[in-house]
C-alpha cells in the first residue's frame, strides 16, 4: 500500500467493490404498478407534470460535499481493462479541469443532479424536463420514434421514452465524452468522465403520490464491465409552483472564470 497514489487507491476500491452493481431488486421494484392516488393523465398514464426537487439520495448512499447529488461508488460495476480513463487526470489547465467554471454545460446526467428545482411538462407524445440549473431542457419523445441518426455527439445526448406499465423508461444515447457528475467537488482527484459510448436509461415511477422513484442506469461499455444502476428519489414540490423556475444565465456575472477574478469596482 505504501506509495499507492490516490488514483490507484480509488481504482482499487472501484474494482474491488462488487456491491450494488447488479441492482436486481431495484429493477424488479421498477416494474411494479404505482400506488393508488398518483397523478394520471386522461388516458390513464402516470402524469409527471409538475414541479420537483432535483434527484436526491436514498438513505445510506454515499454523498458528495457539494449541494449536487453524485453517484455512489458502491453502485459502480468493475472497470474494464482500459476503463481507468473514467478518472481523468487533472492537467492544471482550468478549461480542461473545470469547464463549468467557464459556463460550459453540465451535460447529462450531471446537470440533472444539480441542486435546483425542476419542472416537467407531459403530453401524450412528449415529456419536457426543464431544470433550473443552466436552464437545461430535455425534450423526450414518447411516440415510439427511434433515436435520431447522423447527429454529432451531444452534452445531453438524444433521448427517447417509452412506457413499461406505469414506468416511464427514457433511453439516451449519442453523448459527447464529458463529466459524469460533480464528485470532483468532493475529491479533485476523482474527475469522473463518461465516454462517448455512454447510454443512459432512466426509469421514472410514482412510488407515492408525492415521490417519484428515479432509477438511473449507466451503461458505458468503454468504461464499465456491465451496466449499473443507482436509484434516487424525486420529490414533488407543488409549493414551488407559485414562484416557478428562476432564470439562469451563467455568463451574466461569472466574475472568476478559471480562478482569475475581475477586480471589484
Amino acid at each position, binding site marked *: *500500500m505504501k506509495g*499507492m497514489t490516490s488514483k490507484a*487507491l480509488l481504482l482499487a*476500491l472501484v474494482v474491488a467493490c462488487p456491491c450494488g452493481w447488479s441492482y436486481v431488486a431495484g429493477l424488479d421494484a421498477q416494474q411494479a404498478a404505482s400506488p393508488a392516488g398518483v397523478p394520471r393523465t386522461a388516458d390513464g398514464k402516470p402524469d409527471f407534470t409538475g414541479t420537483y426537487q432535483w434527484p436526491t439520495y436514498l438513505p445510506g448512499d454515499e454523498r458528495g*460535499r*457539494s*449541494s*449536487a447529488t453524485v453517484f455512489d461508488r458502491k453502485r459502480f460495476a468493475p472497470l474494464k481493462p482500459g476503463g481507468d480513463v473514467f478518472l481523468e487526470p487533472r492537467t492544471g489547465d*482550468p478549461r480542461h*479541469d*473545470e469547464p*463549468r*467554471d467557464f*459556463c460550459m454545460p453540465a451535460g447529462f446526467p450531471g446537470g440533472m443532479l*444539480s*441542486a*435546483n*428545482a425542476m419542472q416537467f411538462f407531459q403530453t401524450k407524445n412528449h415529456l419536457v424536463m426543464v431544470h*433550473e*440549473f443552466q436552464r437545461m431542457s430535455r425534450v423526450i419523445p414518447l411516440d415510439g420514434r427511434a433515436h435520431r441518426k447522423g447527429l454529432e455527439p451531444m452534452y445531453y445526448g438524444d433521448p427517447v421514452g417509452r412506457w413499461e406499465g406505469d414506468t416511464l423508461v427514457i433511453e439516451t444515447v449519442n453523448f459527447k465524452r464529458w463529466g459524469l457528475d*460533480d464528485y*470532483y*467537488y*468532493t*475529491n*479533485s482527484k476523482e474527475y469522473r468522465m463518461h465516454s462517448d459510448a455512454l447510454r443512459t436509461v432512466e426509469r421514472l415511477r410514482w412510488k407515492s403520490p408525492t415521490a417519484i422513484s428515479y432509477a438511473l442506469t449507466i451503461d458505458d461499455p468503454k468504461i464499465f464491465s456491465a451496466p449499473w444502476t443507482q436509484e434516487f428519489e424525486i420529490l414533488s414540490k407543488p409549493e*414551488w409552483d407559485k*414562484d416557478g*423556475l*428562476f*432564470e*439562469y*444565465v*451563467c455568463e*451574466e*456575472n*461569472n*466574475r*472568476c472564470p*478559471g*480562478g*482569475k*477574478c*475581475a*477586480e*471589484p*469596482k
Partner: protein
Amino acid sequence: MKALVSVLAVAVLLASAVRPAIAHHSFAAEYDDQKPLKITGTLTKVDWMNPHIWYYVDVKNPDGSTTTWAISGGAPGQLMRRGITKDLLVVGSTVNVEGFKAKDGSNNGFGQRVTYQDGRNVFTATDPAGRAPK
C-alpha cells in the same frame, strides 16, 4: 488498507467542515481554504445575478484609504427558494463578512457568514425589518 481508508475518510470530513458547498463550480476552482477572510465594511452594491450573487463591501484602511472587496454567495434561484431575497442585503449597512479569499490574490472572496452589527446573520436570520426568511 483499512487504516489508509480511515485516514482518507477523516481528511474528507475535515475538508467538508471547512469548505462551503458551491453549485456552479468547485470551491477549489476559485477560492483558497487556507486564506481566511474577515472584514468589516459598508455594503455598497449587490449583484443578484447568476451564476452566483456578488456583493461589494468597502473597507476603511488605517491610512484612510478604502479597499473594495467583492464577495460571492449562492445562486439567486437557490437562495430565493430558501426564502433569502436580495432585500436582505441592505446597501449602506455595515456588515461583517467571514469567508475565504480568492486564489488569485485579488480582492474577491467567498462569504460564508455575513452579519450585521447587531449580530443578525444576513442569510439565516431575520432581515433588517425583522422579517424571518420565508
